[in-house]
């Protein structure tokens, strides 16, 4: 408790409050801007960490994280084109509400729901982080190795629809992680002294998130502007409140555990929340036409899961979302080892972050409700300038790492890889996670086997390691069964599709639902 109060003392200094406000504003702005998600925003802002102190930077990042989430929901409500997979559900009902003239209420229930979910989830983090850290700190190298394998497994197989593509992305990332001379011998350096220290994670993150995305959009830029629904001041009537508060709480209950699990993500809980609200609603006929419960629940789930991802990040050093992965690279930029020892080594930093989450959340509500009409204007930013600006800041970010023109070459090469990944539907997250965790996976394996003098059975000598391997086997089994069932459904659909061509619409609908399972 004292530590938490210390955390608030850290977070409430005028300087850090300023950084939190800055983070929330920046986060919302980039969340609203099409084409920039919170992960890309954080990647572009990594250079800031070179001179700002770790506590201020992490506090600002917390603001960006929450702000970006909220901004993304604004975009999907007003544009009907979700920027991230976690806002797909919000776009369904939210945009219908906006079209029916209830944009203000949709934005309000999303904002207040995010606040409620974020606050509850943060309190859960206060309770859980120290307890989980106590358990985790006793784990040896074999358990840690197993947990990292689980993280790879989760981001590759559980998230995303194609396992083959997940593995391709994962192993490309591992290959990038091998570059350098960490083991004493030059690996994959092409005899290039500039590659001896490996490729800086900032360059990889900026290239894959910013350059890859900007090039991909540029190659497919929508030439006619999207229809944007005008919006006034967000507000909610008494009946909107009555219909929203239960979905907020249920959404939080779905979102947090999924976010906190190493195999989580935000897609599944938002989908579950939507299905639940549809079932429990007194107005089921409104679903699909703009039901407020269908915005309130999934938005709360989305935010609670975002907070939940901080649990594995802070206690295990495991990122389960792209945004968490970039936050992890910010920690590494400061020479802070995220992982079991983090809470012991840097209690001030961790508690400062946990306290600032509540502050960021409150700021978000205060700033965003009155400013919603202003944010909506951002949707009209001319696209050439927007994407040129992204390229500009991406190059600046990569250049400031070492002031080497060579890094800009790497940026372009990896950016083209990012472009190809989007073209061939390769997920980005496994690659980033592999680049960050790859070297540590090798280190933990070496450590475990050195202690056991080469005896491989040490890898399953700890109970936690056994549990993790069992969990992975279980997940693989469940997914294997799921794949077989999906194959069966698709055969049926395929035979139906050949009968009538007009089924295309319905079929893609089914596919989308399947991928959420």
């Amino acid at each position, binding site marked *: 408790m004292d530590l938490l109060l210390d955390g608030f003392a850290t977070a409430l200094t005028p300087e850090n409050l300023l950084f939190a406000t800055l983070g929330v504003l920046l986060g919302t702005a980039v969340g609203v801007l*099409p*084409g920039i998600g919170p992960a890309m925003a954080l990647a572009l802002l990594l*250079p800031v960490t*070179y*001179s700002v102190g770790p506590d201020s930077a992490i506090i600002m990042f917390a603001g960006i994280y929450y702000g970006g989430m909220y901004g993304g929901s604004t975009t999907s409500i007003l544009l009907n*084109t979700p*920027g991230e997979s976690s806002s797909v559900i919000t776009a369904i009902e939210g945009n219908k509400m906006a079209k029916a003239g209830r944009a203000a209420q949709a934005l309000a229930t999303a904002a207040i729901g995010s606040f409620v979910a974020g606050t509850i989830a943060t309190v859960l983090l206060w309770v859980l982080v120290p307890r989980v850290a106590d358990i985790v700190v006793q784990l040896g190298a074999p358990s840690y190795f197993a947990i990292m394998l689980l993280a790879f497994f989760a981001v590759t197989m559980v998230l995303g*629809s*194609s*396992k*083959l*593509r997940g*593995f*391709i992305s994962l*192993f*490309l990332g591992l*290959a990038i992680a*091998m570059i350098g001379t960490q*083991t*004493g*011998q030059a*690996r*994959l350096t092409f005899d290039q002294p500039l590659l001896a220290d490996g490729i800086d994670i900032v360059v990889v993150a900026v290239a894959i998130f910013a350059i890859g*995305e900007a*090039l*991909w*959009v*540029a*190659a*497919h*830029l929508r030439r006619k502007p*999207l229809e944007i629904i005008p919006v006034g001041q967000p507000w909610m009537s008494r009946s909107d409140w009555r219909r929203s508060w239960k979905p907020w709480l249920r959404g939080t209950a779905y979102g947090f555990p999924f976010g906190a699990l190493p195999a989580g993500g935000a897609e599944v809980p938002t989908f579950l929340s939507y299905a639940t609200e549809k079932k429990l609603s007194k107005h089921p006929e409104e679903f699909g036409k703009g039901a407020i419960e269908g915005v309130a629940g999934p938005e709360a789930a989305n935010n609670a899961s975002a907070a939940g991802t901080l649990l594995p990040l802070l206690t295990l050093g495991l990122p389960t979302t792209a945004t968490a992965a970039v936050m992890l690279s910010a920690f590494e930029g400061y020479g802070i080892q995220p992982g079991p020892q983090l809470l012991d080594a840097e209690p001030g930093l961790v508690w400062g972050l946990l306290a600032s989450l509540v502050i960021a959340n409150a700021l978000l509500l205060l700033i965003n409700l009155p400013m919603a009409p202003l944010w909506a204007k951002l949707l009209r930013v001319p696209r*050439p300038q927007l994407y*040129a*600006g992204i*390229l*500009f*800041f991406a*190059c*600046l970010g990569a250049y*400031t790492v070492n002031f080497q023109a060579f890094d*800009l070459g790497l*940026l*372009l090469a990896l950016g*083209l890889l990012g472009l*190809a990944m*989007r*073209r*061939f539907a*390769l997920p980005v997250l496994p690659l980033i996670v592999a680049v960050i965790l790859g070297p540590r996976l*090798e280190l933990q394996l070496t450590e475990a*086997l050195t202690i056991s003098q080469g005896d491989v059975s040490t890898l399953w000598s700890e109970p936690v390691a056994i549990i993790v391997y069992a969990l992975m086997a279980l997940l693989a089994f469940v997914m*294997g069964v799921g*794949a077989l069932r999906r*194959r069966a459904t*698709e*055969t049926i659909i*395929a035979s139906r*599709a050949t009968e009538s061509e007009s089924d*295309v619409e319905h079929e893609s609908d089914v596919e989308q639902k399947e991928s959420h399972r």
Partner: protein
Amino acid sequence: MSGDGTAAATTSPAGGAVDKAQYGMAGFLVLVGGYVLWDASTLTEGFADQPVHAYTFPYAIGAVLVALGVALAVATARGDRPQADDGEDVDLSQGTDLRTLGLLVAVLVGTMLTIDWLGWAITGALLFTGATWALGSRTWVRNLAVGTALSIGSWYGFYVGLGVPIPAGILDGVL
């Protein structure tokens, strides 16, 4: 296990033509995997009792990459088509705009080649102007003005605000 199951799972039931470009991606994977394997073969053994050698991971990663490349090629031949990434500003109904893409890559290559010589303040402004031009904006005077403001502003922002001295290039002494 995964190669076989997923190939069928991701196959679009509607079928259609084979995505030939995806063979290129598969070839790239085999190439990268092959290089990783070759590189691993050049590494020497560490201490004899060392459990994990410097080449252990590269051998495993290279081999898997080659296998994944083959699996992707097989999946492609069986009609697997990627569901390309969607987004707010992405219009997938049109083909790939190679001209814009080529121009942007040229702008980025130009940035890389000139940054040591011209410094960030000039190169950054040219980067912004060139990129807006490539993306179809024709108000280039305004773009040049915005780009110059951005690059000089960011140079001073980093130098004064963050204490990060970005090399000034030929403007050394002027800025």
